[in-house]
């Protein structure tokens, strides 16, 4: 039982598969056709095309015919400092905003909500979820305003007599990471709230009566009981964070000087500002491979439930 799903040609089911009740096989498969056609043409097609272009030198304009360059784009990438910079920034962005930020803050919020009074819980939940429901670009503008030199964060720092700075210039990757925490924490919070609600009250109460302190209960009882949710949540957060484009684009355009240029922004710049579609696609393929790996791990985590 492996998690790697073969792309099964559904229409070739043998006639004698399962003589179950209900309509016959062609009629059964028919309703799948629109979805399968759409997925093949507009999802599988582009992915296949992506694999092909990644090995060519396709450019945006002024080129009669692209030619096959083998692994040229990939060797070029690994010798390209801007690419390595983007890989590093993507790692920083993912670890800071997804693994540490969204995940931990989401868990903390969910845990606090278990104990807090109802009005506070509703208020906080409402605010955090609103940040999540807002369109990506709007979230980008709100946090752009927040982190700008003349923005709210510096106003607060002034008020506290702390040194202000131009966050989007001095620490752009930190600013966009915080932005992603602001926007994405609600998802973790919802997943963990659901998980914590499923822990039977008796177990935590018994431990409490036995005198186990808060941290010990968290470490020895709560975390082991929700470990599946933790795994699922980490995977989905990471996948989501790997593909963040609009938020960073609106806040910094990947700048200044490439200091917040994660892989999606690097890929975009190569393909459109530098007109190197082939090179940009090679980077995209790498991103897609990393995403697929995470996706497979996610499938394994869910394996028992399909």
């Amino acid at each position: 039982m492996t998690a790697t799903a073969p792309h099964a040609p559904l229409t070739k089911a043998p006639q004698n598969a399962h003589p179950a009740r209900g309509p016959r096989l062609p009629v059964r498969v028919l309703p799948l056709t629109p979805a399968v056609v759409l997925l093949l043409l507009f999802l599988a097609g582009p992915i296949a095309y992506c694999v092909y272009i990644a090995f060519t030198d396709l450019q945006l304009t002024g080129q009669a015919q692209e030619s096959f360059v083998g692994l040229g784009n990939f060797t070029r990438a690994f010798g390209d400092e801007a690419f390595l910079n983007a890989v590093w920034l993507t790692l920083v962005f993912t670890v800071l905003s997804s693994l540490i930020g969204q995940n931990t803050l989401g868990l903390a919020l969910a845990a606090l909500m278990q104990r807090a009074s109802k009005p506070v819980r509703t208020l906080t939940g409402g605010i955090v979820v609103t940040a999540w429901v807002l369109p990506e670009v709007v979230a980008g503008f709100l946090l752009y305003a927040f982190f700008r030199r003349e923005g709210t964060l510096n106003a607060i720092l002034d008020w506290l007599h702390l040194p202000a700075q131009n966050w989007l210039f001095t620490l752009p990757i930190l600013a966009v990471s915080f932005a992603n925490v602001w926007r994405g924490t609600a998802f973790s919070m919802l997943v963990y709230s659901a998980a914590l609600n499923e822990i039977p009250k008796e177990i935590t109460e018994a431990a409490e009566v036995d005198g186990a302190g808060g941290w010990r209960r968290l470490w020895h009882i709560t975390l082991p009981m929700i470990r599946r949710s933790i795994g699922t949540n980490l995977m989905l957060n990471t996948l989501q964070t790997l593909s963040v484009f609009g938020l960073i684009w609106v806040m910094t355009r990947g700048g200044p000087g490439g200091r917040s240029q994660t892989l999606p922004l690097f890929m975009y710049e190569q393909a459109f500002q530098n007109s190197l579609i082939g090179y940009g696609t090679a980077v995209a393929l790498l991103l897609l491979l990393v995403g697929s790996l995470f996706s497979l791990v996610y499938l394994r985590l869910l394996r028992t439930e399909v």
Partner: protein
Amino acid sequence: MALTLASRRTTRRLAADAGLLVVAAAFVLPLAWVVLSALDPHANLRVKAPDGLTLANFDAILTPEITFTPLLNSLILCGSATLLTVVCAVLAAYPLSRFHSRFNRPFLLTILFATSLPITAIMVPVYALFVQVDLIDTMHGTIFFFAATQLPFAIWLMKNFMDGVPRELEEAAWTDGASSLQSLVRIVLPLMGPGVGVVTVFSFVMMWGNFFVPFMLLLTPDQMPASVSINDFFGNRGMVAYGQLAAFSLVYSTPVILLYVLVARRLGGGFALGGAVKG
């Protein structure tokens, strides 16, 4: 013992309340900025009490060029793509939920795998492909692509909702000679109304907020949905009118917030997403 436990709980509740309020205060600041600035005649980049309340910002943006056309474009784009997604997902979910075949499992695993692929990564090749096949800068091309990207998750959700509708009712209908399509439309769908609602709202909200797909696949300014046209506040119109940007952000965000509230009310929070992602 019981007393100390009770008083400890009260202390703990107060501590939890305090902790949550601190986070809420940090999270609310950017939201406060957009609301206050939209009503402020002299909005800038910080959260501040407005210098008087005005609807002038809304007046300024509620024109066909700035607001109505982009919102209409968003509606056409996301509405059609959602319709396409939901119809395809209902049709596909039916055999997956109702008939056992050894292809169901691999198919569902593939679908689940596709739900978590980073779509951002394939946008450059999709652009190149759309140029080749002449779908670039067309609404229908973008609609098809949007639908295809939402479809895996929609099928997955729809199939799970459909599994919740008992089979017996349909089997009775089949013996009476009803076709599959008839039993799907007359029996199954009415019983899974909330499920179809969730998939519809979820798909629509995801597309409404999506920036990268229309940004890449559409070129003509007249066709741009609100998610892309909002950037014009920085580019084409000279000095940035922050009050107007904030007002536009509110107008553009309101539909998805309302839809979210509508669905969350009916299904008890979290878009039923906590459950959906766990299968």
